[in-house]
């Protein structure tokens, strides 16, 4: 029983952490190599990793999506998509996709004369199921050794932790006040019933057991 409870706890918190890791913004220092637009399949079970359009009611199988190709300082490549989030989830309210595309194009550079940039993005890159992080903002920086402190993430996580702690404190207080006494009574009732059964069994055993 303990394993089941532990598994559920761990599974729950992994889901919460995974959700936060996907949705909260992250910053990458990269050199933008190219931008392009591709007719991509956005249907299927990976639909949730692509932006859903606000206006259309029909479900399209493919759609033109803008991408930004970039290279990290250590040589790894990273490809971002560039899509509106609109008024729906996640609440970035990103409408300036075309502007961001223009800014990214302005910062395209080569390995010989690199222009380093910091790209703010959310989401995951997975080559196997072909999902891409969504770029939110891009800005030029002087060198790839810049230190970016995620202030917004820090603030939000502190607030979330405070909310979780407040709920937890109230739940524990409620449990101590209301539920534990009842459980104690139930436990005592079970004990009394158990004693009664033992006594009865003793009497029966005395009647029908070995004399």
């Amino acid at each position, binding site marked *: 029983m303990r394993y089941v409870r532990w598994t559920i706890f761990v599974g729950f918190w992994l889901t919460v952490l995974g959700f936060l890791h996907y949705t909260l913004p992250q910053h990458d220092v990269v050199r933008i190599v190219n931008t392009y637009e591709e007719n991509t399949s956005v249907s299927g079970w990976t639909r949730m990793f692509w932006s859903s359009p606000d206006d259309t009611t029909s479900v399209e199988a493919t759609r033109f999506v803008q991408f930004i190709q970039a290279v990290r300082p250590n040589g790894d490549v990273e490809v971002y998509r560039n899509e509106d989030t*609109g008024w729906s989830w996640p609440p970035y309210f990103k409408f300036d996709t075309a502007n961001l595309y223009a800014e990214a194009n302005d910062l395209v550079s080569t390995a010989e004369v690199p222009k380093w940039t910091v790209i703010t993005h959310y989401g995951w890159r997975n080559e196997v199921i072909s999902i891409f992080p969504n770029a939110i903002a891009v800005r030029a920086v002087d060198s790839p050794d810049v230190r970016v402190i995620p202030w917004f993430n820090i603030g939000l996580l502190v607030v979330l932790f405070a909310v979780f702690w407040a709920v937890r404190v109230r739940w524990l207080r409620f449990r101590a006040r209301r539920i534990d006494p009842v459980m104690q009574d139930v436990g005592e009732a079970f004990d009394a019933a158990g004693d009664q059964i033992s006594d009865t069994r003793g009497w029966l055993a005395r009647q029908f057991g070995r004399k």
Partner: protein
Amino acid sequence: MIGFFRLVVIGAVVLSVIYLWISWTSRAAQRRKLLADWEEQALTGDRDAFVAAGMQVYERSLRYRLIVLVYVIPVVVVGTIIYVTNYY
């Protein structure tokens, strides 16, 4: 545009639920505090009138008006996000 209206409607419903919940809990807490004051100070006379008068004072207090922030803060936050994401 439909996305915006959807957000506004859902936001209005959710925020109204939160506002009513906080409002009710706050009023109940204030009522309980007034009753406790009555017991503590061992007052005599009409207890209900005392509680009603205390609630009237509460309705003019700052804490009562602060609950309206439940509507104001999300709108300000969304506006800030839109500005920072699109125009910064």
